[in-house]
């Protein structure tokens, strides 16, 4: 007869529901939901409140699904980085197959529900954004090129377009400009972060710009990308797509952003301890996007 020891049985537990929530990157989702909601609120057509709520829910679930699939594919990378080692997969609280099933299931659910509740154009754009984030950014670009977030940034730029499409069934100049704004905002935002967590990316072998080209080149690129980003932010005003309230807010916020990007460009620090300008820019970039979209909605509603 063989004796049973404490290690002779499977000691793993089924994943907790909180781990499935963590798989959707809820903190990132807040910005996605907010920009999607603003895209919907500035559209010339108003949706029934239940359908509007459902559309926002679908944008949130789609973003969560893409995040889950990203974590499923990148479990090996996440395990090598301090910032991500505590996530459910690298921490061993969930098996990879559960994450895959959850991500794929949530993707189909969000896309179909969007089509049923609003229209199939919005549903197709939502599907495209999930596929773009998972296949183009996560699978193809992230491990291959330092331009990963330049092109991959498009994935995060879709929500205002989806929100607008859910309300109107089409896409016009303003949502395309909002797409361009987030697309151009993403590189300065992520490069500011990647400068002070450079060692994490280097340890994981991710070819982020500071790892491949160095801090100086990255700081210059941050400033260079901030210029067209500021132009895209202000553009809706002179083009007649937004009013003076938005125009003034966009100009003021963009000036602050550019000043901070210039401070980053002037910084020479090589260690995270000396990267206060980068940390400030990263924090402000989040506030910047929230404030810009908030101003756009306020402008439309107050002027109206």
């Amino acid at each position, binding site marked *: 007869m063989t004796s*049973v020891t*404490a290690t002779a049985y499977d000691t793993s*537990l089924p994943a*907790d529901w909180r781990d499935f929530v963590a798989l959707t990157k809820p903190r990132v989702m807040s910005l996605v939901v907010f920009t999607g909601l603003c895209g919907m609120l500035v559209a010339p057509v108003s949706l029934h409140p239940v*359908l509007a709520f459902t559309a926002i829910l679908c944008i949130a679930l789609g973003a969560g699904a893409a995040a889950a699939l990203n974590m499923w594919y990148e479990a090996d990378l996440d395990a090598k980085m301090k910032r991500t080692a505590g996530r459910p997969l690298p921490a061993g609280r969930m098996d990879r197959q559960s994450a895959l099933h959850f991500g794929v299931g949530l993707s189909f659910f969000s896309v179909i529900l969007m089509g049923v*509740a609003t229209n199939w154009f919005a549903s197709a754009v939502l599907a495209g954004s999930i596929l773009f984030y998972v296949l183009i950014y996560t699978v193809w670009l992230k491990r291959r090129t330092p331009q990963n977030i330049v092109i991959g940034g498009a994935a995060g730029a879709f929500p205002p377009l989806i929100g607008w499409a859910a309300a109107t069934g089409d896409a016009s100049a303003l949502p395309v400009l909002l797409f361009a704004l987030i697309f151009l905002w993403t590189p300065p935002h992520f490069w500011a972060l990647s400068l002070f967590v450079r060692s994490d990316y280097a340890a994981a072998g991710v070819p982020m710009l500071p790892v491949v080209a160095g801090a100086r080149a990255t700081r210059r690129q941050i400033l260079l990308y901030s210029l067209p980003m500021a132009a895209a932010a202000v553009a809706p005003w002179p083009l007649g797509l937004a009013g003076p309230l938005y125009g003034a807010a966009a100009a003021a916020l963009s000036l602050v952003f550019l000043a901070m990007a210039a401070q980053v460009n002037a910084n020479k620090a090589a260690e995270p301890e000396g990267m206060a300008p980068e940390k400030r820019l990263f924090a402000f970039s989040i506030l910047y996007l929230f404030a810009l979209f908030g101003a756009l909605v306020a402008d439309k509603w107050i002027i109206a």
Partner: protein
Amino acid sequence: MTTPEELQHARDVRARQRSRSVVMAFALLAFAALMFFITIARMSGG
């Protein structure tokens, strides 16, 4: 023979499964309610 560790593990597994089932039940209920309200909104031309 079942050890105390195995018994505790079995209890932990059941607790985890129970909490997941409760969350799933709430999610299904919320989905059913949402589909009901979506149908009404679509019927009213929303």
